[in-house]
């Protein structure tokens, strides 16, 4: 009886087929003609293609479905896919090769996924599912996703495969010569995500020839714990007389592939430019080589869209600041749906040296699952750090894990049955490194008790198919002020995780000092001790200079920082860090403020962090926070604004001042958090439907906010209905619309028309590169904002009247 694919994968050489497009072109496929149309038009030619590879000895061959999706075939995708698979089944019988496996071949959509592009993640899953369903129904043996150059699209395709059928899933991606996907992912990041998603084999295809692929294959083999597939082109393409051809001939290809087989891969085949002859000779050459099964790597790795971060022998820094616990301003941002504030907290930590960001947005009065999904989407659009998804709500975790672009950390489960049952299946499906807390119905007070819980978590994880490398144990940091033994117990647990359980560890370090003065001192020393006991990841505040100093110094002292280079690059040439000064602010941030310039000066010169310091100083002596705004910030902004209008100050300077004023406002707002704030008015800003340029709108937004307006920012590519509905619901008096393209001014006109109809009392100001006063009049706007200052002046005229 025929062996199943998975019974052979990783246990013997498996041979994949070669190029399709290049062969069909020889048979007469025109440039621009869709190859899959031939499944219906020229079935005999497609069978001939298949049989060529079957006769050459391929074990796995692709049904002609690479581009068969609803974007290319809106009317008959199912028919095309089924025909491709049916023909493969016939070819297999006719060639006497019923041992061979047919793949549903899945190529990229050619669209970029949101937020960079306009294809939604679930829409992509839907597109792939349709093709895979059709192929599975027709009787294919496995799914091969190939030529992927974006991790996010690859994830959508894998989820589609897993959710549509029970077939094995293999995937190959396309790296450039620098070992990156087109969207930036490293080899290790790709491996981490795909292993997490439980694909059966992964690898590389297309773009490069076998020679150029060698360094990438070496990295793949040293990162992957699952079988590796290598399907190169027949060299780099050469264009001569308008024709593209691939230079590596079958004999040379076979030799090179035999060398590659020796690196430790398990499956080989070809891609563009390779023919049945390439595959035949390759099979001969590779079969002579000794087959080596894949070795498990036991590395604990998380990833983002572009990078992998190992939680290993060197302690990783996990930024703790995206968390509302004990933070008034953060809680308010959550209630106000102020996502920008939260994203900015993340970016600050990235700049301060965090390796991973913890994301906790739980607050009783908000919809946590929706907020979690939004924050993760927004954060991963601008930040390259892997995320630790932190919630006690399994729904929030699942929504974030699903749309996460990479392999996340999950915080957390504990020894209780219900957390294990609700969260471990999610990790088994989406992948991730799971934090296991050493607590049960209660918190064990001894290291023995905590290690026992850790063991149980590891056993449970194994029963869900989650490897030990994907668990990190939290030995629990309990406040030392209430129990003098607590730090010792935690440290012993950390040490025994390393020495006895051989599992990675993590701690929320800052808990240790709760209730004590000068918490930074205790945190910093405790971190050093924990690192000496083998801590693998520390959840800390990377913006705190004191704790980062302890972190860097410990790494140097524990031989984790060769030549002390990180330490030196962080501190060479800096002034001695003084003992923390007494003011509350300074001890919290651990920063020492330099000489303070006047707030007015800071804003005019556009210096953001000095402006924040100056605002703090000003608050100490001012009669009221409002007097700082009216007496210093507004006059400074006006000075810069007048300069801009006169042409003596330029846009970047105006914006630097705006950023500085924003920093000062943030400080003042915090001091008034409890008292109601006055605003001049509320304004909607949006970039119109069809247009994705938002810089102009964002510039106007920052200026409007500085001048005391509350801005409802609807973003870019906004439907007219959304703008009108929001204006009605919020009773908005002024709407600002932005469009950059001549083509999108049309949708600006539509928006204006609809607004006039449904909410005639609302004023409309328009702006954007192609607009002029005449154009604005023509489409019926009330005003033309030629720049940000003009827009502010108009808003003033509307709200002061």
């Amino acid at each position, binding site marked *: 009886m025929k062996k199943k694919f998975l019974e052979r994968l990783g246990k013997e050489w498996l041979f994949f087929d070669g190029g399709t497009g290049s062969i069909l072109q020889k048979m007469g496929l025109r*440039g621009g003609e869709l190859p899959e149309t031939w499944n219906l038009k020229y079935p005999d030619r497609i069978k001939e293609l298949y049989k060529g590879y079957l006769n050459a000895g391929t074990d796995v061959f692709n049904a002609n479905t690479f581009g068969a999706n609803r974007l290319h075939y809106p009317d008959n995708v199912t028919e095309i896919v089924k025909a491709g698979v049916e023909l493969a089944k016939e070819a297999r019988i006719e060639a006497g090769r019923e041992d061979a496996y047919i793949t549903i071949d899945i190529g*990229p959509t*050619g669209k970029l996924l949101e937020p960079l592009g306009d294809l939604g993640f679930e829409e992509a899953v839907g597109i792939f599912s349709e093709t895979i369903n059709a192929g599975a129904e027709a009787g294919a043996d496995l799914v091969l996703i190939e030529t992927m150059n974006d991790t996010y699209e690859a994830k959508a395709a894998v989820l589609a495969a897993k959710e549509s059928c029970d077939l094995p899933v293999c995937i190959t991606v396309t790296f450039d010569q620098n070992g990156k996907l087109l*969207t930036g992912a490293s080899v290790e990041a790709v491996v981490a995500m795909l292993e997490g998603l439980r694909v059966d084999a992964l690898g590389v295809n*297309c773009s490069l020839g076998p020679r150029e692929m060698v360094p990438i294959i070496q990295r793949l083999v040293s990162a992957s714990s699952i079988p590796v597939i290598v399907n190169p082109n027949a060299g780099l393409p050469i264009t001569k007389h308008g024709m593209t051809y691939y230079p590596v001939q079958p004999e040379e290809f076979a030799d090179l592939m035999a060398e590659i087989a020796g690196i430790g891969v398990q499956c080989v085949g070809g891609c563009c430019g390779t023919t049945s002859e390439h595959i035949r000779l390759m099979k001969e050459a590779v079969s002579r080589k000794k087959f080596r099964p894949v070795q498990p790597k036991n590395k604990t790795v998380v990833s983002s869209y572009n990078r992998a971060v190992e939680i290993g022998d060197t302690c990783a820094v996990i930024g703790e600041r995206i968390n509302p616990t004990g933070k008034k301003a953060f809680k308010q941002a959550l209630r106000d749906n102020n996502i920008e504030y939260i994203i900015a907290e993340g970016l*600050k930590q990235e700049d301060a040296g965090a390796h991973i960001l913890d994301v906790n947005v739980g607050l009783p009065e908000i919809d946590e699952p929706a907020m979690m999904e939004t924050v993760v989407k927004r954060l991963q659009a601008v930040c390259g750090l892997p995320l630790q998804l932190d919630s006690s709500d399994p729904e929030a975790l699942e929504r974030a894990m699903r749309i996460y672009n990479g392999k996340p950390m999950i915080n957390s489960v504990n020894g209780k049955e219900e957390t294990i049952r609700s969260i471990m299946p999610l990790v088994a499906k989406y992948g991730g490194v799971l934090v296991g807390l050493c607590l049960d119905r209660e918190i064990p007070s001894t290291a023995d008790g905590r290690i026992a819980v850790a063991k149980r978590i590891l056993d449970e994880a194994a029963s869900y198919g989650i490897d030990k490398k994907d668990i990190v144990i939290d030995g629990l940091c309990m406040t030392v002020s209430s129990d003098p033994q607590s730090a010792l117990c935690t440290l012993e647990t950390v040490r025994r995780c390393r020495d006895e359980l051989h599992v990675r560890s993590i701690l929320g370090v800052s808990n240790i000092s709760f209730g004590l003065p000068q918490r930074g001192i205790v945190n910093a020393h405790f971190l050093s001790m924990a690192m000496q006991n083998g801590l693998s990841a520390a959840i800390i505040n990377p913006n705190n200079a004191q704790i980062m100093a302890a972190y860097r110094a410990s790494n140097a002292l524990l031989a984790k920082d060769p030549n002390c280079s990180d330490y030196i690059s962080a501190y060479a040439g800096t002034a001695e860090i003084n003992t923390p000064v007494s003011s509350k602010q300074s001890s919290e941030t651990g920063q020492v403020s330099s000489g303070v310039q006047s707030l007015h000066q800071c804003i005019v010169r556009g210096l953001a962090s000095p402006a924040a310091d100056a605002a703090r100083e000003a608050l100490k002596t001012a009669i009221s926070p409002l007097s700082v705004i009216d007496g210093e910030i507004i006059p400074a902004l006006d000075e810069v604004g007048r300069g801009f209008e006169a042409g003596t100050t330029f846009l970047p300077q105006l914006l630097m001042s705006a950023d500085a004023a924003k920093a000062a406002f943030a400080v003042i707002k915090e001091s008034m958090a409890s008292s109601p704030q006055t605003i001049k008015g509320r304004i909607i800003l949006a970039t119109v439907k*069809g247009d994705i340029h938002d810089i102009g709108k964002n510039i106007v937004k920052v200026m409007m906010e500085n001048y005391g307006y509350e801005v409802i920012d609807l973003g870019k590519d906004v439907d007219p209905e959304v703008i009108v509905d929001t204006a009605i619901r919020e009773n908005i008096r002024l709407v600002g619309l932005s469009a950059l*393209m001549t083509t999108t001014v049309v949708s600006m006109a539509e928006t204006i028309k609809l607004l006039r109809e449904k909410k005639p009392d609302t004023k409309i100001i328009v702006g954007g590169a192609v607009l002029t006063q005449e154009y604005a009049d023509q489409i019926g706007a009330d005003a033309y904002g030629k720049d940000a200052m003009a827009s502010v002046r108009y808003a003033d005229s509307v709200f002061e009247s």
Partner: protein
Amino acid sequence: MNISRKEIRRYLGMKRDSEAMNELIEECVALLEKAAVPRHIYVRLPLSWKDGFPVIDSEVIESRNLAKNLEGCSEIVIMACTLGAEVDRLIAKYNVISMAHAAVLQAAGAAMIEEVCDEVNEEIRRNAEENGFYCHPRFSPGYGDLKLETQKLIFSLINLPKEIGLTLNESMLMTPFKSVTAFIGLSKEKQDESDRNCDACDMSPTCEYRQQEDI
């Protein structure tokens, strides 16, 4: 790569050099150079004519401005360049933390993609002249009366998503943002070099960005 600071200032509407801004501009250029992964591709195709309009791969392009630009050409090069998706992320990041940086990055990105195009254009010119052809000034969808929909034709002729990671959305805008596609006509006759792209553009009477000699 030498990104023109003059161009950056021009895109920012700065009528003259400003000492105060130089530091910010240099910081942004450095950020951009780190993030950008410039990629390009071009193909050379035969060009025919029908009713006075150029025809590429049997599709008639009904644009008077392009027709004028390609006058006398028998072949055409289609080129595409991009700075890559990381630049979009970089700009999106600074939209959150500093609008001043975001605006300068935007301008520097525009200057950089022009520079990339110039370099690729130069390579195309050299290749063309080696076999006896002269290049006409490059012309992009969206210039003058050449419809943005022409992007569809370009994307059908070159697999841009696969080759350089460039994609087209529903509104015919490209992502990554800092990307350019263009036609370059090839003729046997040398062209009058004084032809300027601005002359073909409807916006040129009111354009603030119009190429000026001294900024």
